[in-house]
């Protein structure tokens, strides 16, 4: 059984985030990047299936600029067998639907039975790519899996995280797309041996021409998902900030707890 993990290279959360000149996104010049945290869990889930002999191949796919190949290398060093990199200047500024269409075009001859993705990307937090790919492939989908098992060759059982510490158990007929919540497993790290081995692993790079995708259609789609403003959250209603030595601050806090909550 062939499996695929959809991954994304995202800015590290401790990067210096600044808004760009147009006020429509972050200034990417100052950022450092790494593999999206959610995707590490998705990759680990597939590697465990492979360790258990339930999956024969684990492929990692990303869509992004040249720098994104580093995230693919991280996956290969951690244990993925090969990579697919969708890379084309025509995809700069593409909306999630176009990205999903490109992914579906890139894997159409691959025959993946199980496709995993992180629940969301740590930068845009969109939560779209997994379900989009599922629908475009006309395959079932489950999001936010906290447990995942392959029941037999044709079914995946996922426990979808609900609210209030509950899960919904759902059986999906393969091929299927499942997005993974953090905490589903403990992702392994790349070993030195893995890092060396990764250098010899294949990354297939594909562009829009290979995918028979039209830049005009991508631009039209992007116009239906346009960020017109990116701004820091409004401060107005923010907290009153207390300053001073810890013991003085603590006394001020106690005074407020007493007045405002009555719990003391």
């Amino acid at each position, binding site marked *: 059984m062939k499996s695929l993990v959809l991954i994304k290279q995202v800015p590290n959360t401790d990067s210096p985030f600044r808004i760009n000149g147009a006020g429509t996104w972050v200034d990417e010049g100052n950022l450092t990047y790494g593999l999206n945290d959610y995707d590490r869990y998705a990759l680990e889930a597939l590697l465990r299936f492979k360790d258990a002999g339930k999956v024969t191949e684990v492929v990692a796919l990303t869509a992004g600029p040249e720098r994104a190949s580093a995230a693919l290398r991280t996956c290969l060093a951690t244990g993925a067998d090969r990579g697919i990199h969708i890379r084309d200047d025509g995809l700069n500024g593409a909306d999630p639907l176009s990205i999903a269409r490109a992914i579906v075009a890139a894997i159409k001859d691959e025959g993946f039975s199980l496709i995993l993705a992180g629940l969301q990307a740590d930068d*845009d937090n969109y939560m779209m790519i997994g379900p989009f790919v599922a629908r475009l492939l006309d395959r079932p989908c489950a999001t936010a899996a906290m447990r995942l098992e392959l029941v037999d060759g044709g079914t995946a059982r996922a426990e979808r995280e609900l609210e209030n510490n509950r*899960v919904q158990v759902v059986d999906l007929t393969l091929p299927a797309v499942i997005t993974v919540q953090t905490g589903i497993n403990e992702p392994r790290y790349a070993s030195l041996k893995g890092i060396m081995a990764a250098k010899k692993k294949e990354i297939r790079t594909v562009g829009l021409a290979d995918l028979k995708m039209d830049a005009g259609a991508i631009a039209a789609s992007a116009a239906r998902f346009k960020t017109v403003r990116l701004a820091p959250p409004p401060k107005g209603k923010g907290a009153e900030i207390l300053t001073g030595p810890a013991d003085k601050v603590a006394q001020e806090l106690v005074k407020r707890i007493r007045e405002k909550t009555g719990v003391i």
Partner: protein
Amino acid sequence: MGCRILILAEHEGGAVRETTFELLALAHRLAGEGGGGPADVKALLIGHGIGELAKGIAARGAAEVICAEGEAVKDYTGDGYGRILESVIKAESPDIVLASHTPNGWDCAPLAAAGIGVPIATECAQIAFEGGRPLFTRKAFNGKFIQVLDLGDAKPKMATVQKGAVAAFTGATQGTVRAIPAGVDAAGLRARFSGIKKSEAGGVDLTQAQVIVSGGRGVGAPEKFGVIKDLAAALGGQVGASRPVTDMGWLPHEHQVGSSGVTVNPKLYIACGISGAIQHIVGMKGSGYIIAINKDADAPIFGVASVGVVGDLFEIVPALTKAVKDAKGQ
């Protein structure tokens, strides 16, 4: 003109979820801003044996409730709900479609969006008309920034809406209910519901707590939670946590406050070393009084806190514990 709006209703345990009425309130406002009125607001309800629930929605916000009933959709699956939502959108051709940003809403609404060929603005905190078109406001970069999206000429414009972002509709309406066949049968579904269960056995119930002291990644290590537990004990409260803490196994999952953990509304919530990712904030912003202690002055948690302290939690929290004990005469 006009602005026709379809909302996806949700129900659970034989009752309509309150988020449904939040969507209806938002839909009423948007219909008005778009040049229409209450008659433009419809709801889609999916399930089995839901006739009475449909009447309840028609009496509280929806001009028409489209009631898709079928044995195959007695329980939620993305496959079943997604297909019905998609086919009803195609038949109704609304201008705006709203679902709640709940585990089921975010699961099925993007499936319908991709089927129709439009994107979807997820986890919106606000939607409002500006210059004659609706703009969709959400958080990006885990709450560091507010993003405003223009969905251009997308038809429909689809969104999932954060729980609690809008006050629920409280008016009375005299809407109608229209039953339609679900259009999916069990044999055709590629996803099968197999039950709902507690994710983990746990003895902690934060939903009933009057005081919660929560620790986040900033606590640094599981063995350092002592200061958090001491403060909770001094206040007679419970210990909560943000998602990274439970993911890393520092505390059991039932301590997690947030969209995937529990939603709490204690009289007092103290967030220590929690930056305030949106997933955490939606679970605690209803608390009566919120104190945030964090070393990062720009942490989003200060945006929802009543009072904040920028500093080292390992200095401030023990000092607060001592001050609480002194105040109680302990």
